[in-house]
């Protein structure tokens, strides 16, 4: 622990050892804690999401995004390989790439025209040998010492991850044998087709979004559409799974017919007589690859949520910006084999998700309101004790075990 931590008025020692169910408010608001999270999770030996291969189809195609607060570029090399480079000129630190997507043969920083190839190697600098025998770089200036930071890259079935750390385990080991099959269920090698993006800034701590998707308690309570139309509720056949570390998780469930039942008793969001004027908003067609479950929400710590909710598929990238906010970037996709009808259906069902979605807009709202409640009293703690305080997989969804699992891992890595 560095001295800054011990001097912090928010005293991390206020969290009793062995407790993973009462999360102190300072974990969401403290600046030093946040910086340590960036260093240890986003810039440490973890895999962060950068995008889909479908976004960079050709040699030279690139996409700019972020890991933590650092700007990175995902680019396809002539060889077909995907490279991830930090968007920071080795000369003056410029974020030289301002386009969000594009095609390049090389990257040139506009400031002094240092030029890099698609692997991040510095190809040349102007006036290296001086002008008319004057100035220039010293003889011992070596181009190979001044490349762009090149990240470690893992590509699995069309999804690209990167890490700033050389010490990161293989992507497969990182995800682990419990969660990996669920990753592969959606991403089994079929060619992905990009449907588009949604971007929102949510004024809440980044962990609250992961908690939201490790929390099967709220969907049948907060989201009228889920409880009324049976898309997610407590009386469904469900499984909660996590990896050995408790950092990644899956919430898997099979929809039922909805309607009135024990679980809707006293639930104020339930609307017994609600009928859609246009039923095509919920025109759901089961797909063979689901193998049963109608929903599988995967949290891959720390940077992404992978969504299959009926026919609607997306990745939701978490880009933290300070302890009090994060950008939430949704990338919707389908499969090359989709019929035009299925393509349309996926887009129509997107009305349920994203910053304006019938069941997602309010997730952003509650995250913001939770964050509001964390300020001003670092001694406050949340209570995540549905299904007790134990951490383990379950065959039901009346549990906050996945959130506890994440904080067990968080405390271990953060040494807090």
């Amino acid at each position, binding site marked *: 622990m560095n001295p800054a931590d011990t001097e912090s008025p928010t005293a991390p020692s206020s969290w009793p050892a062995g407790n993973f169910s009462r999360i102190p408010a300072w974990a969401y608001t403290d600046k030093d804690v946040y910086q340590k999270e960036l260093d240890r999770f986003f810039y440490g030996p973890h895999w962060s999401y950068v995008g889909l291969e479908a976004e960079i189809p050709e040699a030279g195609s690139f996409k700019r995004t972020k890991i933590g607060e650092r700007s990175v570029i995902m680019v396809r090399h002539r060889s077909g390989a995907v490279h991830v480079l930090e968007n920071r000129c080795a000369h003056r630190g410029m974020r030289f790439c301002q386009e*969000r*997507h594009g095609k390049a043969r090389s990257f040139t920083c506009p400031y002094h025209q240092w030029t890099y190839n698609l692997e991040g190697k510095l190809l040349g600098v102007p006036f290296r040998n001086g002008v008319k025998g004057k100035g220039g770089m010293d003889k011992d200036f070596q181009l190979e010492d001044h490349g762009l930071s090149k990240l470690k890259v893992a590509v699995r079935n069309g999804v690209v991850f990167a890490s700033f750390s050389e010490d990161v385990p293989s992507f497969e080991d990182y995800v682990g044998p419990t969660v990996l099959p669920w990753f592969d269920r959606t991403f089994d090698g079929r060619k992905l087709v*990009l*449907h*588009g*993006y*949604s*971007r*929102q*800034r*949510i*004024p809440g701590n980044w962990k609250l979004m992961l908690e939201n998707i490790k929390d099967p308690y709220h969907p049948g309570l*907060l*989201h*009228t*559409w889920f409880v*009324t139309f049976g898309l997610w509720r407590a009386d469904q056949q469900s499984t909660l799974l996590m990896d050995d570390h408790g950092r990644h998780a899956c919430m898997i469930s099979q929809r039922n017919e909805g309607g009135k039942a024990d679980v809707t008793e006293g639930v104020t*969001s339930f*609307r017994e007589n*609600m009928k*859609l*004027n*246009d039923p*095509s*908003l919920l025109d759901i067609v089961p797909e063979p690859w689901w193998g049963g479950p109608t929903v599988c929400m995967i949290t891959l710590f720390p940077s992404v949520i992978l969504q299959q909710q009926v026919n609607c598929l997306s990745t939701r990238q978490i880009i933290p910006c300070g302890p009090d906010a994060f*950008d939430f970037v949704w990338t*919707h996709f389908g499969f090359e084999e989709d019929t035009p009808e299925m*393509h349309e259906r996926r*887009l*129509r069902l*997107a*009305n349920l998700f*994203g*910053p*304006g979605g*019938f069941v997602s*807009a*309010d997730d*952003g*709202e*509650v995250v*913001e*309101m939770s964050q509001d409640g964390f300020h001003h009293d670092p001694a406050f703690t949340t209570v995540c004790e549905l299904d007790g305080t134990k951490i383990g997989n379950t065959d039901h969804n009346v549990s906050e075990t996945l959130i506890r699992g994440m904080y067990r891992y968080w405390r271990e890595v953060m040494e807090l």
Partner: protein
Amino acid sequence: MNVTPDLALRAEIQDLYAEYASCLNEPRFEEWPELFCKTGQYKLVPRENHTAGLGLATIALSSRAMMKDRIYGASNTLFHAPYYQRHIISLPRLRLEEDGSVRATTNYVVFRTKYDAMTDILNAGVYHDHIVRENGALRFAEKLCVYDSELIPNSIIYPI
């Protein structure tokens, strides 16, 4: 052929936009779907997707019935911090089609005011509209809202 509408039609179109803004500002949300044809299309799309030809919309409603579902959802099922919205709609740029319908391009900005808070900008963009006459009145056959706003400030609950 004259490609710009005459003054009478211009005035009528202006009234349609005034009514549109009024429905969403006052608000009289239940009346908003009535400004569209029965088979009217409403889409709210980030400029990024529109430019790249990507189909994903923030809100995509393909019938007046679906618009009613959106209004019911926004008013009754979507939990959110309450806010006022204030639409400022520019003068439309108009082009008359051969069938008498009108294509309109109109800039807009929507301010959001939450309780106890300062006013901020919720969304800024352009409407690409197709306006037709149905049962004597002007209606939107299509309203495509393409917004510049790169980041939505948390969420968009009501139509823009």
